[in-house]
Structures are given as C-alpha cells and as structure tokens.
C-alpha cells in the first residue's frame, strides 16, 4: 500500500472530502457577502449572525410548529431574508450616501444585538437539531464513512452556488444586477427601480446566509456563537478571492476549504491559521485578491 508523506491515501481522500464540505459553507457565505458587496458596497458584518439565525429558525420551526427540515430549506431563507429586507429598508438604506465604513459599523452593531438576544433566550450551550430521517445514516465509501447529511451539504451548496452564478452571469436579471453594480445611475435610467433592486439583493444575500444556516443545523451544534467564528474566516476568504467575480467567490470558498482540510492532515496545529497565512501571502503578491479587479 502506498502512502503519501506518511498519510494513507484513504485518509487523504476522506480529509479532502471533508474539506470540500467546509468549503461549501465558506463558498455560500462568501457568495452572499459578494452579492451584497457588489450592489450595496457594504460588508455585511451581520452575515454570521444571519447564518446563526438560519440555524435557529430551522430549529424553531421544527420545535414550535412541527415544520420539518425540507420545508425549512425553503421557508427559512424567506423568513430570515425578510428580516434582512426590513433591516435594509429601516437602517442600511439611510447610509448609502455616507462612507462605506458606516455600513460596516452598523451591521457590526446589529450582529451584537442579534447574537445577544439569542444568547439571552437560548444560552450558549447549544441546542440539538436531529437530522431528518433521509439524512441519517451514511455511505461507506471504502476510504471513509460519509454521513448522508454531509453529502447533502456538498450537493446542496454546489446547486445553490452554481444556480446563483448562472442567475447573475447568464440571465437578464443578473445582467441588470451586474450593470447596477458598475453604474447605478445608468441602470436607473433604463427604468429599473434601483432602490428596490438593492433591497431585494440584500434580502437575497441574507437568504443565502440563512440557507447555509439550515444546512448547518443538523451537523453543528445550534448555538448563538456559531456565526461569529465563521464570519472572520469568511472575511479572510473574501480578501483572498477578491470581490471581482461571483465565480471567484465560489471557487475561493471551496478551494480554501480543501486547503484547510489538507492542513488538518499534515499540520493540524496550523489549521486554524492557514487561511490567514494565505491571506497574508496573497496581500503581498496580489493585493487585489485572486479574482479581484485591479485598480
């Protein structure tokens, strides 16, 4: 049996697959950030909290209303997306004429509030959410036991990411969106309601975060702090990828998940910082990010 640097290939494949799953979350979250950033020009610091809300609302739907996971996949992004729309209308929309930093500060404050409210209500120990029957169990792939719930995350996030990419790059709606990103006044001149488009875009980005939360609920412990760690890593992912393209956000997300997975095998102590180290290197070599527009 051959080994690669002392690691049996089975273990390596297993770790790569797991890296891909992590990457799925990075990709979905950085995609949402990229879409929002593209049109609103703000970094949505609330993104982590909205991801957490997604997981919590999934749990609430099941616990209080008996609504199952599959329905939650549709409902939760709509519900959390709607709260995003309210936030955009009531608060963020007042900041567009100001420096973009205020958007960051506002969403940071909102993240603190949301997180604090959930902490008060549910504590921080975490709440269990049982995976639906279809996702329980798993497949023995020979080199690893792959739980169905994880397999589902990869499939679902690939579908969502590619769907979003297709919508933005290949449809007319997406074309307007891209044009509005480049030049809002021009699109306004085409008779498109730009403010409404901005609002819906924010809702859409938040919905993506919430969807990632739904996918996370059966896998991770549902707790109020689940987003705060992740969001900082996703920020680094975004810096590495650059905000240039939707596809860039997706590729960087999945790619860094894989890199992190590999680090866990070869140098587990470094797995917490590997993404930050890559960020430092990218900043040195290609400051605009791998897919970012120069200038």
């Amino acid at each position: 049996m051959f080994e690669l640097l002392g690691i049996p290939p089975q273990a390596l494949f297993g770790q790569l697959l797991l890296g891909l799953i992590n990457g799925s979350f990075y990709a979905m979250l950085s995609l949402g950030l990229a879409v929002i950033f593209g049109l609103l020009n703000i970094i949505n610091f609330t993104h982590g909290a909205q991801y957490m809300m997604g997981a919590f609302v999934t749990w609430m739907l099941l616990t209080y209303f008996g609504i199952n996971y599959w329905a939650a996949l549709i409902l939760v992004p709509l519900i959390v997306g709607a709260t995003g729309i309210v936030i955009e209308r009531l608060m963020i929309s007042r900041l567009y004429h100001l420096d973009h930093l205020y958007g960051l500060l506002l969403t940071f404050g909102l993240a603190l509030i949301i997180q604090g409210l959930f902490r008060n209500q549910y504590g921080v120990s975490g709440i269990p959410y049982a995976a639906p029957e279809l996702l329980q169990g798993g497949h023995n792939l020979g080199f690893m036991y792959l739980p169905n719930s994880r397999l589902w995350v990869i499939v679902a996030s690939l579908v969502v990411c590619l769907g979003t990419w297709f919508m933005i790059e290949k449809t007319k709606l997406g074309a307007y969106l891209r044009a509005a990103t480049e030049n809002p006044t021009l699109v306004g001149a085409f008779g498109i309601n730009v403010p409404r488009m901005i609002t819906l875009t924010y809702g859409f980005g938040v919905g993506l975060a919430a969807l990632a939360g739904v996918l996370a609920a059966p896998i991770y412990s549902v707790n109020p702090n689940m987003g705060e760690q992740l969001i900082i890593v996703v920020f680094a992912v975004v810096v590495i990828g650059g905000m240039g393209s939707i596809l860039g956000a997706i590729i960087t997300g999945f790619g860094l998940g894989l890199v992190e997975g590999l680090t866990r095998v070869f140098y587990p102590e470094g797995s917490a910082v590997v993404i930050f180290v890559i960020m430092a290197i990218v900043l040195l070599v290609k400051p605009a990010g791998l897919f970012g527009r120069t200038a």
Partner: protein
Amino acid sequence: MTTTDTVSHVSAQPRDKAMGMPRHHMMIFIALFAAMLVAPFVLYPVFLMKVMCFALFAAAFNLLLGFGGLLSFGHAAYFGMASYVSAHAAKVWGLTPELAILSGTLVAMVLGAVIGSLAIRRQGIYFAMVTLAFAQMVYFFALQAPFTGGEDGIQAVPRGDLFGILSTRPDRTFYYVVLAITFGGVLAIYRIIHSPFGQVLKAIRENEPRSISLGYHVNRYKLAVFVISATFAGMAGATKALVFQLASLTDVYWTMSGEVVLMTLLGGMGTVFGPLLGAGIIVAMQNYFASFGAWVLIMQGIIFVLAVLLFREGIIGVLARWIKKPL
C-alpha cells in the same frame, strides 16, 4: 482609481491659540487632570485606572480612524499582545513596571509594523477585514503560545517597584503612575495630531489622490500612523496588565477590537476628547451592568446602531457643533 476613505467630521479652525494649543483645549486638559488627581478619593481607583487605560487605547485608535481615516477592526491584537508581553516581563523576567510597560509597547510597535505593512495594501472596508483577520491570527497565537498561559492567561503579575525604588503595590500609588502614563500618552497623541505630520495625515484623509498628486507617499504615512496607533494601543494594554496584575485572552479577542471602535464612535471620532469620554461611558457601563450578562452586549449593539444612524459625530462631536469650537 483609488478611493478615498474619508470620514467626515468637524474641524473648524480656531485662531485663539496659547502655546500651540487652543485655549479651551488647554483648560479642558487642566480640568481633567485636576479631576483625575482627586478622583481616587471618591471613586474606586482600580475602576478609574481601567477607564484611563481604555481612554488611552481609544485615543490611539482614534488617531488612526479619526485622523488617518483608517478603520482597523483588529486593534485588540496590539492591546492584547502588549499586555501579555508586559505581564510576562514583570512576572518571569522580573522587570520593573516602567520597563515591563516599555517592552510591551515595543512589541506592539513591531507587530503594528508587520501587520500594518500588509494591511495598507488594501483600502476601505477591505482594510477593516484584513486587520480583523490578522488580529484573529494573533488571537490564535496567543491561545497556543506557551508563554501566554493559554486560557488561564498570565496570573498574579507583580507590579514591582517603579524605577526599582517606589513600590506600586498599593492601588493609590499605582494610580498616579497610570495617570502619568495615560495622560502623557494622550498629550503625545494630541501633539501628533497637531504636528506637520498630522497636517499631512489630515490631507490624506480628506483627499487621498490629491495628496499623492502633491508628491506625498501616502502609504508611508498610513503605515507610520498605523504603527504609532498600534504603539499607543500597546502602551495602554501593557499598563492594563499591571493594573489588573493579569493578562488574558479577553484583551486580544475581536470583541475588544469592536469595543474600542464603539468607544471612539460614541465619543466622537476625529475629536480630541471624544474617545476619552466614550471609553469612560463604555467601561462604566460594563462595570455597573456586569450582572446583566448578555444585555451588555445587546446594549453595546444598540449604541452602535444608534450612533451610526443618529449621531455619527458622537457626543463630543455634537457638543463641538453646539459651541462651534472643535473639541
């Protein structure tokens, strides 16, 4: 084209200056100093020392944000790392308090130079994200490095004897040392703002491309102000370690970075006295509402939102507008 990271604020031009400082500024400084001299006889000295450390921290941060136009979301890295180094120096190396604080400050300066030189390659919100990410890296380092004591932190740090003679064990004695350090630090920051260097900084904040076209190496200025800000943040953190006689992960965690942003925003960014007031309010809030648990977090969030939506100039900024004088 480069974008400008201008943060709008008040800065009219007073002409009634005494010794390089507008008269009303000097009067406020003197009043503040006098108040702080007697304060420990009225209020709990450790609480006051905490306020002063955070006031210096916020003033250092404000130098970067309010006058350099750079929003760092990772200032906890310098504050926290300096506090570890200072605690380690005092406890393990047995250095006197002034040397312990100095060594913490120097480490913050070096760290600021390293992170700063990478971070200034990106601007605006990217800059904020990069600083945040690097600070998180420093946090992981602090968590894992053997000398920081991981989650336990460095405990039972001796304050030692100032210059090897004066024992700073009693809180009241150390209080005046802290007063000297923080007041000196704040005055130094004031001088930096009002130096030829500070003048160029303001120009960069106001209009970066124009400053470039006038021949200023904008990135070098940004790096310089970043390093200075990190240094003073480190000074505050190093002092705090000796006040509480401990250094812990709290000081290096990202919520600490958020808190200093909040202090500055609430007090008034780009003002001289705003960060000091903001630090006082937030520290008092944390102190007296400590038993409310997560509500403190929620309140901080609400203050953030209200400050951004309703009074972006901050408390001191609004006051300055009323009396039509910069504060």
